[in-house]
């Protein structure tokens, strides 16, 4: 059993290579806070009344106590947050805006920070389409749990009535009529995110790994290995082997950039008529790191579909070779196949830990509002682990 007493920083001057707890400070803090919070026990989904009360407190704190809340409804879909949509009306002007509340449950498939997510939304505003940020309750003092409110953005995540698309948008098939229109935007938006000058970013709750070091890689290994140790419910020798391999083979990151962290089909909205992307969602895994981490994420079989010939297509749009070629052409960057391979293994490790450890733990302990979804999603960890084995064997998955 992992101990919080061993969770502090390593010796002064210790590098990420030496210190298994070297990682982003904010992520370590909120993860350790989760260990305390989980002792509060079973969590039930918030009622509309509880949400309305919390919103009242939040609006009051912003001097908007006279504003009216209506049309409050819970949103389905998504595996990590409680999400609601509501209308906020200014009684003085009659102007009504439709808003989305995104709130943490007690525990879930991932532990992330609403302050970080709000900061990155502001950082990428104007670079790629994102929902406008309206309010943040970073420590949950008004809503009871950390929360963030954005404007509602219209759009769909896949063709209506289309096939495919499991919980949380996994295996989303976009629809044949949209693929050609979405593919160039998918590449373009990713290139734009990676091109942001990190020196200009106002991200006070982010830590920046040093360029030319292995920090970007090792911070990720350290974090997800920590999550495994604290959240695991069973034995998986493969994880011990993978962690060792990741540490021994961690690559240098020459130029850390802003990453989305969950960049895939299912996490963007597009206009049903025009096929234009209207918003990139779910920035909670965003961090500063290596482009190969974002690129390789879409190689994960969970996030694509098989075409009629049985070939894997990234988000239903490209083969993996085409995806890399198009990213290289649009960005002017060169993808390193060795680094790509390492980050494919890392992404498998991350996703397997989320689904096999954190999700199962929350479902087992009843600390989430949708245990039955988490215990369902865990099943995908076995396909992820199968892929991880093949990558480690050196076979192309």
């Amino acid at each position, binding site marked *: 059993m992992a101990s919080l007493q061993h969770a502090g920083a390593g010796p002064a001057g210790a590098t990420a290579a030496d210190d298994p707890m070297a990682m982003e400070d904010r992520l370590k803090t909120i993860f350790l806070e989760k260990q305390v919070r989980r002792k509060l026990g079973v969590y039930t989904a918030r009622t509309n009344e509880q949400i309305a009360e919390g919103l009242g407190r939040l609006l009051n704190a912003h001097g908007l106590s006279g504003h009216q809340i209506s049309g409050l409804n819970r949103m389905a879909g998504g595996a990590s947050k409680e999400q609601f949509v509501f209308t906020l009306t200014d009684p003085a002007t009659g102007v009504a805006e439709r808003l989305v509340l995104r709130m943490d449950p007690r525990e879930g498939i991932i532990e992330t920070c609403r302050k970080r997510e709000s900061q990155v939304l502001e950082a990428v505003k104007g670079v790629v389409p994102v929902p406008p940020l309206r309010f943040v309750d970073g420590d949950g003092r008004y809503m009871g749990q950390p929360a963030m409110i954005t404007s509602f953005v219209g759009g769909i995540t896949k063709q209506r009535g289309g096939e495919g698309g499991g919980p949380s948008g996994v295996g989303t098939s976009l629809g044949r009529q949209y693929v050609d229109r979405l593919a160039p935007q998918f590449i373009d938006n990713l290139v734009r995110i990676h091109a942001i000058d990190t020196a200009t970013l106002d991200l006070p709750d982010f830590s920046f790994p040093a360029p030319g070091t292995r920090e970007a890689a090792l911070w990720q290994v350290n974090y997800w290995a920590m999550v495994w140790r604290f959240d695991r419910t069973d034995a998986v020798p*493969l994880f011990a082997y993978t962690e060792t391999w990741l540490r021994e083979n961690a690559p240098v990151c020459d130029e850390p950039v802003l990453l989305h962290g969950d960049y895939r089909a299912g996490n963007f909205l597009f206009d049903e008529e025009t096929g234009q992307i209207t918003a990139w969602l779910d920035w909670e895994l965003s961090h500063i790191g290596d482009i190969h981490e974002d690129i390789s994420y879409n190689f994960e079989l969970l996030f694509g579909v098989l075409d009629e010939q049985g070939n894997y297509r990234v988000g239903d749009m490209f083969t993996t070779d085409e995806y890399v070629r198009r990213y290289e052409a649009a960005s002017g960057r060169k993808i390193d196949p060795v680094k790509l391979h390492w980050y494919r293994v890392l992404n498998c490790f991350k996703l397997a830990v989320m689904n096999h450890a954190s999700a199962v733990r929350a479902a087992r302990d009843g600390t989430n509002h949708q245990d*039955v979804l988490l215990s*369902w999603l865990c099943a995908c960890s076995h*396909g992820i682990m199968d892929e991880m084995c093949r990558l480690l064997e050196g076979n192309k998955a």
Partner: protein
Amino acid sequence: MTPSIDVRIASMVRTLGDIIIPAIDPDNSLAREQAALLHGHLRMLVEQLPHVAAYEQLCLDDMHAVAGELTGTASGGIKTHEAARQLKDACANTERQSDQKAGYHRIGFALEELITAAGIDGDAAFRKTLGTAVLQHSLRQTRRERSWFAMTGLDIFKADLPSIPEMVAGA
């Protein structure tokens, strides 16, 4: 024993699908989604239940066999030898008990310790043997698990997997 567990679960599946789900308010998206997942879980349990004991025994037997081979070949420093000794103890304790799942995880935890220890002071040759054994075992185990949970529809290659009865029979 009557009504049996499988009869009770099958009756839950029908009631949920025929009566409860259709009655849920269409605007209550969370309830609809959760009910559909519940229905899916119960349907999967109907398929899995007759094979649980055989499946857990199969997983235990494989883990036990891999561990046995490795304890016999462990080579390296103090940590590696101590971890190998503890793995051997875990295997011996498991033979004396009847809870297959607990036994599987007991051996699994000890194997994890051996992997970590070998990473510190294992001989290069043993580390290579260990790595190959762990990966080969993991491929077999993940394939079994993928069959076990194929009904979730989350596996992109589920069409290539043996059915649960085929899998527990050794396919």
